[in-house]
């Protein structure tokens, strides 16, 4: 395989890992606080639609991003009301949110745009453009030399290729997602808020005894989860693709959930897991079937691999994944 091909696959790995990573960190905040969230998928989908819809109407992608975050937050609050205030089953609430998003997005899209449940395609201004770094090979060089970017890229030296293809040229949200990893680590493990948030997921009664509001902390965690899911959804519809199409999240929320378990609820490992699953997607996207020494690996095996790996990890044969202890249980104050 050519060096440039590998770089290109890694480049698309980063693009594909970004929504997974954002959703995975979203789930990390929520589950560390003891609120299971299988509604990541639904929140992303809702955010994807509203960001694309608002960006299409206003032509401003930042307004789109805000709308996407707001839509995702609304579902987060719903999840919070059901699972924190009314102490309902968090898993059932998540299932309901996924269906709500899946139905409402198409319903509203059809009502607003009448294009069979999609938004109009987004053009420049309505999309997050790639951010070209200085000295990177980009359209400006292509215009100056009169040669296509792909040609210039192929002729450049390896370091320049890595710099131009892999590091430069992503949308701002990609860089945000990767910066969110150390930020998440810092918040969770180096601040008072983070300590309390983790405590509330392990032993809420202790947090309550210390005079800190369990309900408040859990709502805060659920809202951060909504914020990050909103950015993930907006990235899907306004950066990775140009507009919303029906069911465009395509199970990414569940892959993020799988990555979260794979990473055993730790931020840096979450990044590793998301990059791995992103790589699998990138490979499946580029090659149909992979020949490996006479053995053909079908593309479906690549699709299933994240889920199989997660089951193996959950089974505990290779390093057991133990979720936060109070996860999934509503907190009832002692009287």
């Amino acid at each position, binding site marked *: 395989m050519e060096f440039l091909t590998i770089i290109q696959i890694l480049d698309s790995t980063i693009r594909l890992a970004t929504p997974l990573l954002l959703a995975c960190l979203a789930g990390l905040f929520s589950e560390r606080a003891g609120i299971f969230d299988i509604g990541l998928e639904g929140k992303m989908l809702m955010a994807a639609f509203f960001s694309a819809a608002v960006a299409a109407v206003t032509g401003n992608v930042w307004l789109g991003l805000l709308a996407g975050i707001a839509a995702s937050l609304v579902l987060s609050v719903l999840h919070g009301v*059901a699972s924190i205030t009314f102490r309902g089953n968090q898993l*059932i609430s998540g299932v*309901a949110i996924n269906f709500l998003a899946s*139905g409402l997005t198409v319903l509203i899209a059809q009502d607003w745009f009448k294009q069979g449940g999609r938004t109009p395609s987004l053009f420049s201004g309505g999309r997050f453009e790639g951010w070209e770094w200085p000295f990177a090979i980009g359209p400006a060089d292509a215009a100056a030399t009169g040669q296509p970017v792909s040609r210039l890229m192929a002729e450049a030296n390896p370091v320049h290729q890595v710099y131009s293809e892999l590091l430069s040229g992503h949308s701002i949200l990609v860089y945000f997602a990767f910066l969110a990893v150390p930020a998440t680590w810092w918040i969770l493990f180096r601040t008072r808020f983070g300590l309390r948030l983790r405590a509330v997921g392990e032993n809420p009664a202790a947090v309550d005894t210390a005079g800190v509001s369990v309900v408040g902390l859990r709502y805060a965690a659920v809202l951060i989860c909504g914020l990050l899911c909103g950015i993930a959804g907006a990235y899907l519809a306004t950066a990775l693709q140009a507009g919303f199409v029906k069911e465009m999240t395509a199970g990414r929320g569940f892959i993020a959930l799988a990555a979260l378990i794979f990473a055993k609820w730790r931020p840096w490992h979450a990044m590793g897991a998301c990059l791995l699953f992103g790589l699998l997607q990138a490979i499946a996207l580029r090659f149909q079937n992979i020949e490996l020494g006479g053995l053909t690996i079908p593309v479906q095996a690549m699709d299933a691999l994240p889920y199989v790996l997660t*089951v193996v990890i959950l089974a*505990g044969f290779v390093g057991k994944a133990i979720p936060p202890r109070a996860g999934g249980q509503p907190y009832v104050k002692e009287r």
Partner: protein
Amino acid sequence: MEKMPKWADVVLIPLISLLLAAALSALVILAIGEDPVAAVKLMVDGALGSTYGWGYTLYYATNFMFTGLAVAVAAHAGLFNIGGEGQAMLGGLGVALVCLFIPWPHWSLALIFAALGAGLFGAAWAAIPAYLQAKRGSHIVITTIMFNFIAAAVLNYMLVNVLRPKGSQDPASARFPETVHLPSLHEMLAPLGIEFSKSGPANVSLLVALAACVVIWLLIWRTPLGYEIRSLGKSEPAARYAGISSVRIVMIAMLISGALAGMMAINNVMGEAERLVLNSTEGAGFIGIAVALMGRNHPFGVFLAAILFGFLYQGGAELALWTSIPRELIVVIQALVILFTGALDDMVRMPLEKIFIAVRKGQN
């Protein structure tokens, strides 16, 4: 002291939840700029107004009875089987293998073995998550979700690389032979002199689904095994203290649950499509969750809820055909039903309990 009478718990709360879901759905229809009353009328006409409509309503209801029972049996053991969709996909594979590779002399024989094959494949797909839950404590909700996706990949592989006839572009199996054609309601009712539409896909599997409701009722409330399942679901420590093996019960409950979800395939794969196609389940595995919640995990409740959702599905298709309301409205209604009957149960229950207690105090 009971906070409220049993009828309120069993009938009133689901009914209020349903009304809340319906009211919100009506608001959604209004927001789209359509008339909710006209929409309901159209749905009732389309789904229940003709034997054609009933043919579809009962066809969908048959699917939902199987998947609803699957969720209900697992729920009695305290397990949330969200993997009905994957188990039903694998059940479809079982049916396809039985129907394609064995020359059956008569449909009745084929049906028995197809149901067995479907049940076996569905149960097998539930077995691994069940084992992991029972022995290794891996959360069954997550593992069954993962198995849904793995099932989709397996089915995709089987259809594209193995079962697809030569020269065909369509990722689907060959058509099943004529001999395994299941009699539709039209063909069953014609000898009795009852006129029923030819085009509705409802078929003899409906009777199998009804029988399954009765069998599951007997199992849960009239057998020692059912007692053990319910004990485990109510309190694991108490069940263990009573000498009930939780590993055994988790395995058995999930195998039954998976088999029921898998058996849905005799209706949609063998009865309707008569070949295996991609996405043959059309989300019925997930609707089972709403059906079981709505039906309070009781087979009779599941039966009623399945008819209700069958009506919603057929009615929704009619709406999409005649108005600007897309079919996805049904997904929204389904979400609201799950939300109100499942997650927001306390929101309905707590005020109601207060009312009952207040009324009782007033009487004393």
